[in-house]
């Protein structure tokens, strides 16, 4: 399946991804010094983090070419992750009464 050549090619890819990750890290730190609003700051940071995360997952963790079961599993997990984050958030925000502090 993976012969030596393709591994060599992969190694080049890995190094490139490393470069990309480093650059993105610098960018996200730099962006945080820009004085943008909270919301856009969050959006920018989350987008960059997602790009970095996908690079790690798809190249280092070989998700670009995985088997069906793993995709299903991760799909379900991602879905539940979103449910856990957002349905909870929606529920807490859809609240009768007020917070006192």
């Amino acid at each position, binding site marked *: 399946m993976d012969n030596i050549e393709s591994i060599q090619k992969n190694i080049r890819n890995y190094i490139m991804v490393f470069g990309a990750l480093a650059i993105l890290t610098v960018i996200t730190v730099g962006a945080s010094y820009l004085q943008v609003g909270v919301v856009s700051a969050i959006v920018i940071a989350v987008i960059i983090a997602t790009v970095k995360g996908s690079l*790690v*997952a798809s190249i*280092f*963790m070989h998700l670009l070419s995985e088997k069906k*079961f793993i995709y299903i599993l991760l799909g379900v997990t991602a879905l539940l992750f979103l449910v856990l984050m957002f349905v909870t*958030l929606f529920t807490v925000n859809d609240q009768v009464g007020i917070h006192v502090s």
Partner: protein
Amino acid sequence: MQIPYTVEPRPDTGLHNAKIGIWLFLASEVMLFGGLFSAYVLLRTGSIVWPEGSSILSVPIGTFNTMALIASSVTMVLSWAALKINNLSKFKMYMFLTYFLGLVFLIVKVVFEYLPKFEHHLYPSESTFLAIYFTLTGLHALHVLGGVIVNIYFWGPGSKMWETEPERFTNRVEVAGLYWHFVDLVWIFLFPVLYLL
């Protein structure tokens, strides 16, 4: 009798057992950190004031550590690739770099971040931000520690398996690598969330 598909993949799924096992484990880790992230989001949206991370935490140190973890991630995958091309000594070198960088991460975390915080009486009980900061990074650091231990094992005594069952050993390193990349991936999200926002 032997348990099938510990090394060679099962034809219809195309996977060997450990590969499925580790991905299942990672899925549960996603939900573990998912629970903590949703705690973060909830507490943050529910609070009136939330400090800017950089006002409490040191962004340069965080950036340094981010780089260290990213680098260790790439050395990890390189060490696996070295096994794939039958080069054990290269594997050892990359593996060494991997756990070395992991250790650097931990030391920087403890010595240059946690301890100074404690000296300034910035304990988890001080504020919600610090509470979530210490919990998230502490749990992440434990994961790094676990990974470092596993990696040291494969670098040292574990690598004996290369002589007897090279394929199985490569699989093991791949599986350890998946875990290590995941730990890196969590940090990729933790860093901006805690330090930059």
